[in-house]
């Protein structure tokens, strides 16, 4: 599969620093429809920070974001949502005191004609999407604090999937999951990919990266080490990019 035409997302020369430390330094990555791009690197390499510039949690100091070839300005999470960018954060970003439906629709509540919350509609919709993503999920009327790690994860995923995302950002989506749930997430990623979504996947597990991703971009100390098609490299190549900060093949 060759990536031709206009990329779905293009992050160009993104830089952001916190208190004089360059967390992300002139990094450029891109993403095509129906593609999964893995973002790899040590803790503190700047992966999450880079991706937060796309999801609107941070505003980049410099650099440009293009969606479908058009330059866009993303200053807050709302701007990102307007571009159909959905994010599943590592922390899940759930309000623990609210139930699944309230979390799923947080910030985008369904309302009746008179402007009041349409609770039953929201719960019904939540039941529908959860039936698809996690058929075992039954706890609709309790705060999400009472749910297991995997159930919480499926609420966070449901939130991203429900609103017809075109661009999905997943920050270590399987970190808190057991093997079976991890398998479910892998299947979901495959399914969404086939629907033509572009997915940025932040992942530590090299195995997952090799299995799920089409390309991998490796970062170290805020800099982009390189982007490789996973077919062209071995796990060891990727590991040395992460650890040594250089691509052994290119170095030859």
């Amino acid at each position, binding site marked *: 599969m060759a990536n031709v035409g206009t990329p779905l997302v293009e992050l160009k020369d993104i830089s952001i620093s916190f208190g004089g430390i360059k967390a992300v330094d002139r990094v450029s990555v891109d993403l095509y429809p129906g593609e999964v791009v893995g973002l790899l690197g040590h803790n503190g390499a700047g992966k999450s920070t880079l991706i937060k510039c796309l999801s609107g949690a941070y505003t980049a100091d410099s650099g440009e974001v293009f969606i479908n070839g058009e330059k866009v300005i993303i200053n807050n999470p709302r701007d990102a949502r307007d571009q159909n960018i959905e994010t599943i954060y590592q922390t899940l970003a759930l*309000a623990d*005191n*609210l139930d699944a439906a309230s979390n799923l629709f947080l*910030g985008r509540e369904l309302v009746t004609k008179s402007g*009041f919350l349409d609770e039953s509609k929201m719960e019904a919709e939540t039941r529908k999407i959860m039936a698809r993503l996690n058929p075992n999920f039954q706890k609709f009327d309790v705060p999400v604090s009472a749910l297991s790690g995997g159930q919480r994860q499926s609420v966070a995923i449901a939130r991203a999937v429900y609103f017809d995302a075109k661009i999905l950002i997943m920050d270590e989506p399987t970190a808190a999951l057991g093997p079976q749930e991890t398998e479910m997430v892998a299947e979901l990623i495959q399914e969404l990919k086939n629907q033509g979504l572009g997915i940025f996947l932040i992942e530590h597990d090299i195995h997952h990266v090799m299995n799920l991703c089409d390309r991998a971009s490796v970062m170290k100390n805020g800099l982009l080490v390189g982007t490789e098609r996973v077919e062209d490299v071995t796990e060891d190549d990727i590991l040395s990019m992460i650890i040594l900060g250089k691509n052994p093949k290119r170095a030859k």
Partner: protein
Amino acid sequence: MNDTTSSKNADDSSKSIISRFITATEIDPRLLGMLGALALIWFGFHFYGVIFNDFGAFLTPRNLWNLSVQTSSIGIMATGMVLVIVTRNIDLSVGSMIGVIAMAMGLLQVEVLPQFVGIGHWSISIIAVIVGLIFGTLIGAIHGWLIAYREIPAFIVTLGGLMVWRGMAFLSGGGRTISPVDPSFALLGGGPYGAVGASVSWVIGGLACFGVGYIIYSGRQSRIKHDFHLRPMWAEMMLTAVGWASIIGAVILVNSYPWPKGIVRQYGAKVGQDLEGTFISHGFAVPVLILVAVGIGMTILMTRTRFGRYVFAIGGNPEAAALAGIDTKWVTMKVFALMGMLTAIASVIASARLNSATNALGILDELYVIAAAVIGGTSLAGGIGKIYGAILGALVMQSLQSGMVLIGFDSAIQRIVVGVVLVLAVYLDIVYNKRVKK
């Protein structure tokens, strides 16, 4: 398969009647706990009076009517304090705000407006209330702006407010008491003239019964529509019956408290009839109706609107709320502005009831308001709180206080008891939460 069903059934029947009742009616067990505590306080004080003073003064129409009026001002502010505490903030300034808003409204009615429209003009009370509401909202908005946009902790901003507004209250009137307020303004504080009378009370009671019936019916319809779990029919019937009985009971209660003889005579002289010995009912007091309206309005705001949902979300996880695209700063500022407006309403009631504005009005109210919200189940950790809980909390606090006055405890002991009850209530809540989690 068979095994699981039968064991499930066995499980169900082994549960106590009370827990099955709670499951079926979906009543918050906390609400039952609070009503139980209230009943204990009411009957306790009454029978203490019966046994030691030969007269039970607590469970009389007169005392309960007064209790309802005394609860109004704290209760109204407590509904706002729920939002403040749910968003992980605190407001220590409401007592002082009561003072400064009352002074502003008092000076306006007594010294400013009469110069322009003449003493006793109909517009005086309306202008005073509107100006008071705007003033209160503005003070709250200033607090909210400092807290949300300047990121000064709410504790500090409102502690500053506590001192600043009390000082302003003193300066604005030069330490004087401004009295008497406009006669129609005074009606907002209750008293025989500030109550709606027997027939209007029945009309209000009828509307309330209709409202209860409608809520239960439409709730069931909506569950049927979406195919959700339904409450058993007997539970729906029982909730309706209990709702109607309490409303009718309240109407009968307020209607069986007659005007005092002196007021009847005075009123008779005014309308030119001999009303000597006539039984004129108080009916619901105006401040109580304001409290009920505020309580309903705030409940709708908190449970049926986006704003309320965002308030809870911010309290549960401020970061998640921001990532969900919620403008958390703007919501926080609105919460404090709303607190200011509710404080202004409480200030209207408090100064109208006193028929005067003094710079000492509302001293220590902030503590009673916070205590009412916390006793009513609002968690200081944020994210959890109920409007009706806060109002019931205010009623519990006020019941304790007036009960102790009735049986002749002096104010030092009153404070000790209220303090102990506050700590005990929060402790019981913690114990309850731990049990539920297990």
